[in-house]
């Protein structure tokens, strides 16, 4: 990654969940924090997300899921990223994630799980450090 390039993040809403408050807030916040943010809008399929992530050459992917479909959708995104040779892109998950599922997501290969009440600055710092060490 060229050092003068902004960190590029894809913020995506996979599945059918329409609760996009968190996704939009994160998108605005990361943009204000100096990131380049691509927000997919609602109902982006795992296939579309992976296509966008590769085409846009993003440094990180953030998935926002509040419907309970987080395990199925996240594992699909990770699987497709690996298939496309883009398994090194860190994937973050935010939303309504029951405590017991956080470890399951990490085991799938998710870089970080963020739930309600997380300051945007914390997410931004997490992405920056992950991209720097990638």
């Amino acid at each position, binding site marked *: 990654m060229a050092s003068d390039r902004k960190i590029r993040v894809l913020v995506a809403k996979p*599945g*059918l*969940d*329409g*609760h*996009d*408050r968190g996704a*939009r*807030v994160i*998108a*605005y*916040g990361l943009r204000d924090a100096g990131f380049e*943010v691509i*927000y*997919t*809008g*609602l*109902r982006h*399929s*795992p296939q579309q997300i992976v296509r966008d992530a590769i085409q846009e050459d993003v440094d990180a992917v953030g998935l926002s899921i509040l*419907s*309970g*479909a*987080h*395990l*199925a*959708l996240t594992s*699909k995104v990770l699987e497709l990223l690996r298939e496309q040779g883009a398994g090194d892109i860190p994937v973050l998950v935010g939303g*309504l994630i*029951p*405590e017991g599922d956080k470890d399951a997501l990490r085991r799938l290969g998710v870089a970080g799980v963020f*739930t*309600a*009440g997380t*300051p*945007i*600055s914390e997410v931004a710092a997490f992405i920056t450090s992950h991209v720097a060490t990638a």
Partner: protein
Amino acid sequence: MGRSRDEMERIERAERAWQEEVVEPRVQRFKIPRCPTRFYTPAHLRDFDFLEKVGFPGQYPFTSGNHPFEAWRAHAEAGARLGVRPDYGVSSAGRYSGYGTAEDYRDYLLAMQARGSRGGPNVAFDLATQCGYDSDSPNALGEVGRVGVAIDSYRDFRVIYEAFTGERDIDKVASNFTINAPCAVILAMLAALAEERGIPLAKLRGTPQNDILKEFIARGTYIYPPRESMRLFRDTLVFCRKQMPSMNVNSIGGYHIREAGATRAQDLAFSMANGIAYLRAGVDAGLEIDDFASKFTFNAFGGSMQVYHEIAFQRAARRMWARILKERFGATDPHAMMIRQPLTAHIGCTSTTLQRPLNNIARSVIGGMAAGMSGGMPSAYPPFDEPLGLGHSLASIQLQIDATRIMIYEAGIADVTDPWAGSYFMESLTDEIEAAAQQDLDRIEGMGGAVAAIENGYMPRAVGQSAYERQKRIENQEDFVVGVNCFTGENELELSLNQTVEVLYDPEQLRSAEERQIAKLADLKRVRSVAAVSRSLATLEQHARDVEANLMPDLIECVKSDATLQEICDVLRGVFGEAEPVKL
């Protein structure tokens, strides 16, 4: 308030003197830039006309309430003596349920009935159903039976209603459906069931959410573009009024818009704008305003911890809606002018915190106080474990219902109607909120109304931006959330609850629902008559192209032929097109 000019001037002089002699010295003594509190006097309400602005409960403009007392209040004491679990307000919100397959949900309903639940179902549909996809669609991956029950066909719908027969038949209990984009299809299923059971459509009772416009602003389960969606709304409205006159038409949601991030004024303005669009649809279809507006309901207004503001908000909302109905639409029946909502003020799920979640009980009680002081049941809502995961525990529902009872029976919150009526402060705040909302409503009307303000992105974007503003205020500690951005130090005790309490839904059923539902759908596709499905869908498509046609009779034929929900929605997608997701 009928005070003479002379008296008002005396009060204003006294206030100026008080500012100088009492307030300023105290502000200086504490070395703060300004007085952190406010005090209201009659001077804040100079030309206040009580009858015009407030009036009596149950009379125009309904500021102080729809009724002198709500139906639940009539027998509240008797209910306590008999120990009857109330079947209204908070407990009916608690009855909002649905998960897994129709069989799972039917069994759950039967179990709840065995525990004393009365009344009809308040059905939560899974997201695939809400978005018009069958369970075997790739779009449904991971979503089947999650946030509600999966309905792929009329056969699924019929299974749910195996829990409602005899004394609980569909002409005796009310059916509530939290569904919007495919609402017409679900109503068609209800009509088909009535026909099958030999029950006249006119006897059906219930409330579909059927509020598609707010889906574009918040919630997101739209299918077709806004204008085409409004055509389907019109078809349900006209069909309901002519064939199922006991059914409510819709449940207009302010609360979703607030939860998505709208400010209080935006919530009120956008909800009124949406309501006006639905009223216009009825008028344009040739219906009488008094006849159909009285069958509009509202989901719930509210959604913040600012207790005074939420009380004022309820009062302002009732007055605005009443004036819109009377002055703009010429309604004469008082019932057509009322905001009928099962839950009034409440704190909103976004006011609850994942951090120290038991604090949410305190929060919900404050919301309940606001409700009780603004014309509603003092309902503690939501259950404290709302932000912990997906689904409430029975323990949290018991605590919620008991908190509500404590407010009613011990605190006497509901013993006075509109206790703030005439308060210099509350009347000022009510006026302020109304004026701010009116300004935004005028802007939306200037754009051409709610549909136009969705098409041009104004309302959805405004909500997202307000959500971000709120987040920034929290991160900058301009707004405080206890346990989240303040009082998080090591001396705080991180109270949490042992989460082994009984959950409402069987986790194993939830896990396997998708597989079981897809297998059922495959069976259906094997046994049904393909010719009958093709015929009914072809007729639907033909009539969908005719804007004047009402699609409800065709939809009833489609569901009776065992066409799936997605097959029906796909035909309409082909004719109407699909809505574009809103970008940032």
